[in-house]
């Protein structure tokens, strides 16, 4: 019995290896295509050579191996797949159905939960998103003060492990939103953020003490190990500086408090939201904290900020030297990612920077720039071929490749329609 199992396992692994090696040898050449590598100069007409999962060469003068499958890119523009720096993809299906919502755990402190462990690869929102040129997304928890940990997925795969690129990516902290402005509304909670950060501080302190007791117990048999605490365990990589914090922070006062908190605790941090960032842009830049914007499809947090506050915010922060990334902050409208960037470009952000803020900047911020974010040799072959500017609303996406594999662009958008086309168009 045991021997049979062993043989079976061996055969299986040989099979897996051979499939892997066959895949690795597949060569793809996208020719006569305009290339926007994002890092480096645009190439008016060139070739992208893909071997297996990775990009082997990008340039105007690339030798094409005879075994290469050719894709004619004439009239198309190649971009790296976009990266959504904050989404609920895979954790959200239908808003009003609680049973389909998995990004929010009960309670206020949940550092132990990890979004990628609840992922639904078959979500109907994923094919729509990837068919618009978005090939990877950070899947983010929310709710409470510490909603949990996020992970980065590629938008292709049938099981969570097939989709996960890096997980966990960050521990999340959520400070209160600014209550909406307007003449008749009440003022929201003020200085609430710094009080809540004190609570996080206290938790981190507990984690440090917990670890000290663990180390002490491992060295000295007389000492008892502290009771296992899943929450403090999950915070250990944070206090070691291995896992960054993504702090959801909005008002200028809270942003200042969060900068001070990160500096005092000597932690690696990323800000999310930052709708009043433009008021404290220099301070964020000086603290060298990258920023992931929330949805720009929102109203300014306070009426006095001006009707265009969220739209011009990214341009102001980038100008001050902050590294920025956009996010959809959604699942059902994750496909909108490029338009948040374009909206910021309409209100002052440089267009090239807008493109970088959905490709190479999120890759850098999330620590995966060695894998994605640009069309460069050695990176994963996440490639989008579009009929024009990828940030434009009217641009049709023609091909999407994830790790060198061409993705079927059909989605609920096309499938539901096909189902009914015949009945409508039948002449009666």
């Amino acid at each position, binding site marked *: 019995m045991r021997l049979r199992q062993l043989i079976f396992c061996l055969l299986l692994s040989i099979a897996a290896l051979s499939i892997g090696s066959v895949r690795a040898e597949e060569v793809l050449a996208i020719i006569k295509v305009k290339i926007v590598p994002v890092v480096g100069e645009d190439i008016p007409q060139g070739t992208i050579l893909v071997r297996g999962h990775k990009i082997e060469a990008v340039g105007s003068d690339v030798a094409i191996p005879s075994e290469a499958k050719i894709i004619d890119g004439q009239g198309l523009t190649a971009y790296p797949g976009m990266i959504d720096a904050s989404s609920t993809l895979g954790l959200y299906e239908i808003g*009003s159905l609680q049973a389909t919502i998995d990004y929010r755990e009960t309670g206020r402190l949940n550092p132990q939960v990890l979004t990628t462990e609840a992922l639904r690869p078959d979500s109907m929102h994923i094919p729509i998103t990837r068919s618009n040129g978005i090939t990877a997304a950070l899947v983010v928890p929310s709710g409470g003060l510490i909603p949990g940990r996020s992970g980065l997925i590629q938008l292709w795969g049938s099981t969570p492990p097939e989709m996960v690129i890096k997980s966990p990516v960050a521990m999340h902290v959520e400070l209160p939103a600014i*209550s909406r402005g307007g003449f008749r509304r009440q003022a929201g909670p003020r200085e609430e953020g710094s009080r809540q950060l004190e609570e996080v501080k206290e938790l981190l302190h507990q984690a440090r003490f917990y670890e000290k007791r663990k180390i002490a117990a491992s060295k000295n048999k007389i000492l008892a190990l502290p009771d296992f605490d899943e929450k403090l365990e999950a915070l250990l990589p944070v206090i070691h500086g291995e896992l960054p914090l993504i702090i959801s922070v909005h008002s200028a006062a809270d942003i200042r408090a969060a900068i001070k908190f990160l500096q005092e605790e000597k932690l690696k941090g990323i800000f999310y939201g930052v709708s009043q960032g433009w008021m404290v842009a220099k301070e964020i830049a000086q603290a060298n904290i990258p920023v992931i914007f929330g949805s720009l499809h929102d109203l300014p947090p306070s009426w006095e900020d001006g009707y265009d506050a969220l739209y011009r915010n990214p341009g102001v922060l980038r100008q001050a030297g902050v590294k920025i990334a956009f996010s959809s902050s959604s699942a059902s409208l994750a496909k909108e990612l490029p338009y948040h960037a374009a909206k910021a470009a309409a209100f002052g952000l440089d267009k090239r920077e807008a493109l970088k803020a959905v490709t190479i900047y999120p890759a850098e911020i999330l620590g995966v720039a060695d894998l994605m974010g640009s069309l460069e040799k050695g990176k994963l072959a996440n490639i989008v071929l579009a009929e024009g500017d990828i940030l434009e609303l009217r641009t049709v996406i023609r091909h999407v490749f994830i790790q060198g594999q061409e993705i079927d662009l059909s989605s609920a958008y096309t499938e539901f329609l096909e189902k009914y086309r015949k009945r409508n168009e039948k002449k009666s």
Partner: protein
Amino acid sequence: MKKTIILSLCLFLVAVGPILAGGNLLLKNGTILTVTKGTIPKGDILILDGFIRQIGENITAPAGVKVIDVSGKYIIPGIIDSHTHIALSGTNETGNAITAEVNMRDVLHAEDTSIFTAISGGVTTIHTLHGSANPIGGQNITLKLKWGKKAEEMIFAQAWPTLKFALGENVTQANRTVAGGEERRYPASRMGVVAIIRRELQRAREYIAQWDRYNEWQRLKILNRPLLPPCKDLQLEALADLLRGKLVARCHSYRSDETIEFIQLSHEFGFRVACFEHIPEAYKIAKELAAEKIGISVFMDSWAYKVEAAEGIATMPAYCAQQGVLVSINSDSNERIRRLFNDAAKAIKYGGLSEDEALKLITLNPAIQLGVDKWVGSLEVGKHGDVAVFNEHPLSAYTRCDLTIIEGDIYFDREAYLKERQEAQKVNPKPKLSGGGQ
């Protein structure tokens, strides 16, 4: 004291409009997208007394008419939102399932800052409706977004009077939790929704019959003593007006099946449905909608927020338009209202509409749905001088609205707004660091 000054400055800043130009204006050297009569690459539009008098090249301004050079910019008809709930101080009368007597005209809120949000996105006309809590909601109203004017001055009097109906989950309150021992409001199922609407229409039919009989007997003087008139019922008056053709129905519906049932009801009682609202499943019954000549006012791509919206696809608006359905894109939101032009552009990507067809989704088509296409919805001589000016092509993702003009008066001027903001900052240079609004 200082606080008061700052507050009043803020108020002033917000209340930029209207900068009155007396309804006379000449826009020069813009790319004019007329929507119905092609594109003029470099043209002028002359507005006199609030009406478009001339569209063409090299128009000279009559004496005293303000001239604005819009070189390099794009001029489109003012955007029309066929379904909103802004500029109101109430949306839903949820005390009853039938509230046809309620009229949104009575709760207009001219100071709603959402009006400013809307004009900052080129919107000039809106249809603002009762909510979707009731099978038969209230009467709705069409407004011109004359920010800064009194509510009565905003009313677009020529628009059809409309009555709101609603079907599906919002009415059955499927997503509402009921406390222990509490009974759900009738109707709580789609069966009940159809039944209650039929009941009310039948009552209205009989109400009309009573009044007709009374009027007839009065006229013929059959009895030689005074007749006692039937009891006046304001709720039934509204429904009677629907059956008499003085009101048209606007029906909130999501699923294709309930929509078909409502069309049946309209045949049964002989009233006119101007438009179905939202109807994410419209593509399933495009054939019927086109044959009935009933318009649809829909989201471009907002979906999956509830079960009946889980098959609402972004390919629907373009597809239905191509099948001959009169489609408009609405916001139903005080935020989305300022980027309807972005939504329209997506119908090019998802379904391949032409630029003119895409623009019609937010201009001419909603105008037809509201019965005001004779006055607004395209740039034509004789129509109202309702215009939006964009710095780049309005269907580009990089575009920005710079000017919003209603009947020749400027209500949103980005340049002037920025100048005012700068002035305000000079007085109060320290950015406000607290969170909340005023």
